[in-house]
């Protein structure tokens, strides 16, 4: 180990990490490649880790992990593209410092973050790194995984969906809502829905917008559920019962809610509900099931 300064480092692997160690810790470089302390002054101290005779993949991975123990996927994506850009513009040629061992080193780095090297991951990282920085920061803050962001791989071009990223940043949804919004917006875009239609439903906020996007994505089911709800509302429910048409995955049904305070009360309320059941035999009374038949006829 050798103590040098930032200005003595030949290359900087600055991938804009969101957090860094306190300035009282020296920055770290490996073979002249700075891996931390990117924003420090030129004369700031740097610990050079490259020992004579090379640097083992596991040691690099450990050193990198020590410097960045909690890296989000977008940060990792930026690191990956930074390394790739150093390879003379070709992702197949690795930096001259570790031409032979880089694939193994990369594998070891990923293992530190509980990830496994694969083409799928590399493709996702390239896509994530190409998204706007404020979207990346949202994804980092919400802890999105490679799987959560995998939908980006189905886009022929990211530039057409800038509105997707900006809307997510604007709405700042939770992870789960954000992942669903991202997937739905990308799918609707790929299905040819107009951007204005998508943006319109998002004006009411993330959760309400998500529901509307789901309806837009599944229009037949949405129409059927809407008709069914209208039919159910028209049944002669007693005042104490609240009834609604509910979707439970691939099935839907009537949900009835009421409270009872004693066995007698329970009995009385069930009798009231029985009257609803009887009225359902009335010819001409709309039911969700009849609505279904109409919808598809």
């Amino acid at each position, binding site marked *: 180990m050798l103590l040098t300064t930032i200005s003595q480092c030949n290359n900087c692997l600055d991938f804009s990490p969101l957090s860094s160690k306190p300035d009282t810790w020296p920055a770290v470089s490996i073979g002249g490649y700075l891996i931390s302390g990117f924003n420090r002054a030129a004369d700031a101290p740097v610990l050079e880790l490259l020992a004579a005779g090379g640097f083992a993949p596991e040691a690099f991975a450990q050193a990198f992990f020590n410097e960045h123990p909690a890296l989000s996927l977008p940060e990792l994506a930026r690191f990956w593209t930074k390394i790739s850009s150093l390879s003379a513009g070709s992702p197949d040629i690795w930096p001259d410092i570790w031409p032979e061992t880089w694939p193994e080193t990369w594998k070891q780095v990923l293992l530190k973050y509980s990830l496994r090297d694969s083409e799928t991951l590399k493709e996702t990282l390239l896509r994530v790194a190409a998204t706007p920085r404020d979207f990346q920061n949202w994804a980092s803050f919400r802890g999105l995984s490679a799987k959560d962001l995998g939908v980006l791989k189905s886009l022929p071009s990211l530039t057409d969906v800038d509105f997707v990223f900006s809307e997510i940043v604007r709405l700042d949804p939770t992870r789960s809502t954000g992942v669903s919004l991202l997937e739905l917006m990308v799918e609707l875009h*790929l*299905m040819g829905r107009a951007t204005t239609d998508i943006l319109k439903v998002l004006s009411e906020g993330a959760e309400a917008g998500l529901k509307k996007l789901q309806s837009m994505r599944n229009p037949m089911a949405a129409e059927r559920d809407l008709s069914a709800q209208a039919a159910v509302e028209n049944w002669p429910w007693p005042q104490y019962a609240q009834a609604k048409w509910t979707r439970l995955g691939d099935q839907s049904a009537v949900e009835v809610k009421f409270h009872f305070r004693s066995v007698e009360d329970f009995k009385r309320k069930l009798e009231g509900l029985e009257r609803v059941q009887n009225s359902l035999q009335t010819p001409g009374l709309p039911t969700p099931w009849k609505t279904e038949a109409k919808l598809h006829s």
Partner: protein
Amino acid sequence: MMIQNLIEKFQHIYIDEQSRGSKVAQRFVSLFPEEKISFVSEMPRSEARGSLSSKEFDRSKKEIFITPFKGSFFKRCPGSKPGLACCNYFVLNLGLQCDMNCSYCYLQSFINTPVLTIYSNLDQALSELDEMGLKFSEQSMRIGTGETIDSLSLDELTLYSHELISFFKRYPNWRLEFKTKSDRVEQFLNTEHAGNVIVSWSVNPEFIVSSEEHSTASLAARLDAAEKCLARGFQIAFHIDPMVWHPEWRENYLGLVDEIVRRFEPSQIPYISLGALRFQPEQRHLMRERFGLKSYVTQAEVFTSPDGKMRYDADMRQEMFAHVIARFKEHDPLWKVFLCMETPESWISTYQAPPRRVAGLEELFDPKVPAAILADEKRDLL
């Protein structure tokens, strides 16, 4: 001529050194040009193991790896999971991956090998069956080969059909089922059989064949092949599966039923199974990347079902099944149609009865799977 298409279709054949002496490897060596053959000591492209990218998945359909299967060949159909009504079907996997390219293919949810694999140790598979035969030769069992690889699309290369058909002559109470979307049957039509071989086709209206079942035989070619098999005394069956919703689904599926009915009699077809589009949720990513969002499969309105798979709305499925069943029954009540990989609830809403109580299907769903086989399976799982 047809075999020449296959030889041209594959870019490279890798033969595991352990399979060098196998019949199937020797046949590939005799058929393919020398420059397309390599002998290897491990799986090629093994760096690509794990979940495959769309490019890797596409490439895996163009290269073949011949290797021995290490493990037990004989398994129960995935439909035998709790919560699904199962038709007592056993699977014998003789390979992994398919040279055809259906947008909905369930192999997209679990294939993690970078090449199309053909197992070279068919003799071991047959030994396993012989072991079963020691105890259960008198039992009625259906054994299919088309779960993880199409039974016949590569059969002109492997000629596995010959050995299997001959083998099943020793077990007349068992039924061997080939399941295919190809029309490649000529190679086994002259093979002597015991009348217990069912050649079955997964069929869909031509509209769906051409839009979703890429590189498969046309509907007409599949039905022509079925007629040829029937003429040679093979039993035939059809799987209208997966039914895919599209705006003209009603007319198109009626057309399909009518075409089957025009060509065949109910007495000639022991069963027709129905199933609707279903897939594992994680499969949607690969489907979307590989087929875009212009496909009726990737565009489908699907929801999570109790078994975790994505399916159409249950009422819609029931309507689709009832539509097809009604048409068959209009033609002749003797058509035997059953639901594949469906819940008992779907059965009841479609047939007003569970499968074992539906006329004509009792035998298919009779819980006659030898208890000992199930016990063996449980032991394996432990």
